[in-house]
């Protein structure tokens, strides 16, 4: 505990010093070591292969907190559904995604105020973000593209809930029932003239009130998996609120006030990561998407894997890895529609300059970055990689990438790359080394399928990272 606090202190001081006077304060957007944040990034959702994704967010503060929730499809990060949750103090919201037969459907039984409302039968996602006029990115235009991706939750603003602030106080549950003021909140968020009242009602941007959890659940016969994980939490994302309407841009609603903001590009603080090898904080870009990219920047992604059949013990294992680049669209998707990463010219807050650190723009359905893979068994023996399918050289071409070991396909992703190696290698660890540091998050998921029900399970394992040395 003392060690952690010392490091946090070092971080704060280091940022101030590291910026050599360029930084306005010690506040800097960084990955939270304590799993609380102003922003939560859930690295993956899926409804493929019988999988369902549960999401939960807790407001750990005594304030009413307005949160933008945005679902991005996996290939090019297009916004396939977004809405706002107005969390009352100490409130939890939960929901889940399931396959509806024509793509994912978001459902909830929660009573918290959401704008828009999630219908009792669930809210289906739409393909509009890549099928509407001007949105073509060369990728597939089918419903299937909606079936996997990642999720971001961004605090928009916070408020003391009392009688002098009836709009925000309207989010509070009374006697365990739905908030009576949700109608007024909805009216404010969906009126072209509602922004001033929202800005007045949510004047604060408080430190890290959000805690998240997610679970990948598969109830198909023979599966019965419930793998639980934590989202990546970002501290000090902004210093001021960024309230927006839940409306598309129009004559009365500028893009920056529309539901397409805020995004991860809305950071107002310097990006910083803690480098364990030097025990120093490393500051990066001063704001915007580049600041978040700095905070998430890694040279290598490391984790364990297991892929084996063990007839003697009567069980087998599968492993998939998820590697998500949550800011990649701001570099690689240069489409200027409201759904594009860049957005309408001059409108998107905090855009970076150019494609770097990524290699190429998203065209013809992909944007690839070459990587090097080092795969070892548990006794440090390196495994020769015989194939990396579908590409010849190992590369990651999407925003949320799935890697599967020897065609295991645990997550049933058709976008997965399969790493092939001799089956004599049963388990071990692997490092994905980027040629240029990239902003990445994710996890490994391993299942064990056994004749003994007690040994049949699936679990998520957070990745470990090597940060770039500067």
């Amino acid at each position, binding site marked *: 505990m003392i060690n952690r606090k010392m490091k946090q202190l070092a971080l704060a001081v280091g940022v101030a010093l590291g910026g050599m006077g360029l930084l306005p304060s010690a506040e800097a957007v960084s990955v939270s070591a304590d799993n609380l944040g102003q922003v939560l990034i859930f690295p993956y959702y899926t*409804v493929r*292969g*019988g999988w*369902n994704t*549960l999401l939960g967010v807790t407001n750990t503060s005594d304030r009413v907190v307005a949160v933008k929730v945005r679902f991005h499809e996996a290939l090019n990060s297009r916004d396939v559904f977004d809405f706002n949750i107005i969390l009352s103090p100490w409130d*939890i919201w*939960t929901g*889940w995604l*399931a*396959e*509806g*037969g024509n793509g994912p459907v978001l*459902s909830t*039984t929660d009573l918290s105020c959401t704008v828009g409302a999630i219908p009792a039968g669930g809210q289906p996602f739409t393909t509009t973000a890549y099928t509407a006029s001007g949105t073509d990115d060369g990728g597939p235009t089918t419903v299937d593209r909606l079936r996997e991706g990642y999720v971001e939750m961004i605090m928009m603003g916070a408020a003391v809930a009392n009688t002098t602030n009836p709009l925000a106080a309207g989010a509070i549950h009374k006697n365990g029932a739905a908030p009576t003021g949700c109608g007024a909140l909805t009216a404010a968020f969906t009126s072209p003239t509602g922004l001033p009242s929202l800005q007045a009602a949510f004047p604060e941007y408080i430190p890290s009130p959000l805690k998240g959890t997610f679970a990948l*659940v598969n*109830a*198909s*016969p*023979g*599966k*019965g*998996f*419930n793998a639980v994980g934590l989202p990546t939490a970002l501290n000090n994302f902004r210093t001021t609120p960024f309230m927006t309407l839940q409306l598309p841009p129009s004559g009365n609603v500028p893009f920056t006030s529309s539901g397409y903001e805020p995004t991860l590009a809305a950071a107002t603080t310097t990006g910083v990561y803690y480098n364990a090898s030097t025990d120093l904080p490393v500051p990066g870009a001063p704001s915007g998407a580049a600041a978040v990219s700095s905070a998430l920047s890694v040279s290598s992604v490391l984790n364990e894997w297991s892929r084996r059949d063990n007839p003697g013990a*009567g069980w087998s294992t*599968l492993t998939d890895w998820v590697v998500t680049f949550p800011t990649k669209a701001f570099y690689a998707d240069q489409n200027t529609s409201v759904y594009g990463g860049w957005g309408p010219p001059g409108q998107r807050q905090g855009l970076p300059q150019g494609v770097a650190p990524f290699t190429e723009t998203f065209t013809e359905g992909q944007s690839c970055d070459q990587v090097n893979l080092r795969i070892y068994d548990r006794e440090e023996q390196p495994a020769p990689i015989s194939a990396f399918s579908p590409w010849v050289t190992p590369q990651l071409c999407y925003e949320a990438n799935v890697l599967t070991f020897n065609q295991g396909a645990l997550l049933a992703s058709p976008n997965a790359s399969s790493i092939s190696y001799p089956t004599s290698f049963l388990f071990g660890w692997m490092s994905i080394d980027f040629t240029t540091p990239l902003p990445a998050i994710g996890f490994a998921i391993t299942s064990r*399928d*056994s*004749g*003994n*029900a007690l040994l*049949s399970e699936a679990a998520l394992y957070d990745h470990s990272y090597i940060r770039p040395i500067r």
Partner: protein
Amino acid sequence: MIKVLYEPKEYMVYLLRRLVMILLVYPAMTASVVAAAEAVPAAEAVQARRAVLEQRVAAWWDALIRQDFSAAYSFTSPGYRKSYSLTAFKGKFDKKSDWRGIKVVDVDFKGDDAATVGINMHFVYHDPQAERDFDMRTYVQEPWVLVDGQWWYLVKD
């Protein structure tokens, strides 16, 4: 008096056109009529085939929902049962998923002896922390095979 509609030359052209039309269209019409006539029993056959398969799917799921894994085991393919014992099956399938019901949504026959069955699966997820039950419905696809005139659930992994 016969009303002359065409000059003789024009009439010849008209007759030739009719002949060409008849030669071109009639076989096609005949073929489509014959095909339609044949399609009726073919569609009925597919429907009957689907009904038999759906009955098996419903019975398999009825056993799963009742947690009668011995009965459910009897629906798995002969190849699977040769390789895996009832105990192994129970170990794999008795995962305490709280299934409540299914509805067959679509059936995609893959040739004569295989099919993918799309179902809406209704189950309850018991959130361990919230002590709250989530009534979840999701669409999944199941592989089935026809062996010795009977449909069997194919355990793929």
